[in-house]
């Protein structure tokens, strides 16, 4: 396809005997905002460092905007804006000086430097702090400086390593809004281990664990892959013991597991796991009616991304 902006093929990176990235392959298309998920140490940052030409892959290949990250690294770097993890910046420069430095490094000169800084600085909310030293800024502002610098040369692709880590909720909302807006015209990859972030900003997500790619799809697709569905049931038993209730509920066909999570004075709350294929709500309702329990609440909870994430990444953590 013509609009493939990033093409990664069986990418592998080894640090000595340790395999940080293991045979990872994926494509990113123009206009996508790709969430790169995984536990700490899963290989997210390493993959991003390869895509931005900071590290070289041990095996496999990666192409960004049609250029190989190893053989044509200068061309790649001209087209990529990168925000490294923890936003390293020169602390002894003012915001304006820092952005000017970035602009010059990208070969900009003359009036274009100031006009771009004005535009991007305004978009990132930096106009008020232009004269301040980077080292004196709060973490949120530093993040914005890093983001502004990454977007200064109007790159086709933005690679952001944990762009919202260490920010307060308001700042997170601002940065997300900014990323969403940028994602309309550009291709964005962002890494995170915060799941709501993916739901809020990304059109597609990759889950990586122990260096391996374990899932690739839209958040909805991945949620649908989850097999178990959880039901929450609150009943008033009118005198029947909780144990009996549990027994009766477990005997409903399709129920895999039933657990009492709360309930003292006659009203009990159960969490019931059943297969995702059938809807158990009718059967559960019947049980309640047949036994003359008062049904106070019955809900089916769609599998959350948290569940998907946990199922896909646990058991691999010992490796990472």
């Amino acid at each position, binding site marked *: 396809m013509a609009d493939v902006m990033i093409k990664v093929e069986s990418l592998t990176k080894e640090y000595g005997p340790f395999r940080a990235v293991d045979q990872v392959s994926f494509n990113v298309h123009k206009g996508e905002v790709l969430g790169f998920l995984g536990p700490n140490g899963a290989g997210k940052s390493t993959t991003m460092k390869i895509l931005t030409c900071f590290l070289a892959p041990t095996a496999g290949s990666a192409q960004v905007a049609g250029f190989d990250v190893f053989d044509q690294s200068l061309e790649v770097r*001209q087209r990529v804006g990168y925000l490294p993890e923890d936003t390293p910046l020169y602390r002894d420069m003012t915001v304006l*000086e820092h952005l000017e430095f970035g602009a010059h490094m990208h070969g900009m000169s003359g009036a274009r430097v100031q006009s771009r800084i004005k535009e991007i600085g305004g978009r990132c909310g930096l106009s008020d702090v232009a004269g301040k030293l980077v080292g004196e800024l709060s973490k949120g502002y530093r993040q914005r400086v890093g983001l502004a610098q990454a977007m200064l040369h109007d790159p086709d692709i933005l690679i952001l390593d944990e762009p919202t880590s260490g920010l307060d909720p308001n700042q997170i909302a601002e940065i997300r809004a900014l990323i969403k807006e940028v994602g309309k015209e550009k291709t964005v990859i962002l890494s995170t281990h915060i799941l709501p972030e993916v739901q809020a900003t990304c059109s597609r997500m990759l889950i990586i664990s122990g260096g391996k790619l374990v899932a690739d799809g839209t958040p909805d697709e991945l949620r649908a892959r989850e097999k178990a569905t959880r039901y929450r049931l609150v009943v008033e038993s009118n005198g029947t013991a909780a144990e009996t209730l549990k027994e009766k509920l477990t005997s409903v066909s399709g129920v895999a597991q039933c657990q009492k999570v709360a309930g003292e004075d006659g009203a009990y709350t159960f969490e019931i796991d059943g297969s995702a294929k059938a809807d158990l709500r009718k059967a559960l309702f019947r049980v309640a009616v047949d036994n003359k329990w008062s049904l106070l609440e019955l809900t089916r909870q769609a599998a959350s991304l948290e569940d998907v994430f946990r199922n896909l990444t646990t058991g691999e953590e010992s490796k990472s």
Partner: protein
Amino acid sequence: MSTATTVAKREIKTYFNSPVAYIVVMVFMLITGYLFFSQLFLEKQAELRYYFTLTPLVFTFIIPAITMRLIAEEKGSGTLEMLITMPVRDWEVVLGKFLAGMAMLGAIVGMTLFYAITVAALGPIDRGPVITGYLGLLLMGGSYVSIGVMASSLTRNQIVAFILAFAISFALFIFGQIMQFSPEWLSPILAYLSMGNHFESFSRGVVDSRDVLFYVSLMAVALVIATASLESRKWK
């Protein structure tokens, strides 16, 4: 190429934003000033010979103090990752850092022109040896700067970078002094590698292309090693 000068400009700005530059300049002026003025007032001799003889030794610790932060600091703070994921070649980064070190060297050597002016004011001055002497200082100092850049590229710790640069620079300096005790076969090698020996003719007013070649090739070797050290992150 323009990115190398952008890197250099940023480094020079950083030098003068921090107290390090001023301290280094002060220490250098203190030491060389003592050497020059003690000669002037005690021996009643207005000449630069003493300054030229001892500056090579002073350089062995002043220049590593200038160069230690150049790359090591960026490695330690992580800004190196930001810098070299911009469209810049590794050798351009190294060259930029080297040029910044040279600018700093130029500044401290430039300040000692004051001694030459003092001598000239007191009587006729033999211009030839002074001009070649200063040229020699820049070439020899440049070699020390390149060694410092190399040492700084090998570690993320500035203290380690300083000690490493000082050790190499000092070794190259004393090679000339230990020739008397060294085995006969070793002497010519030590003589060739000695920083001081190559500088001697400069201070006598002679520019020998072999000396220039020695310093320039030393700089080239050190900077190539520094570049390789930056590139080593990409070795498979």
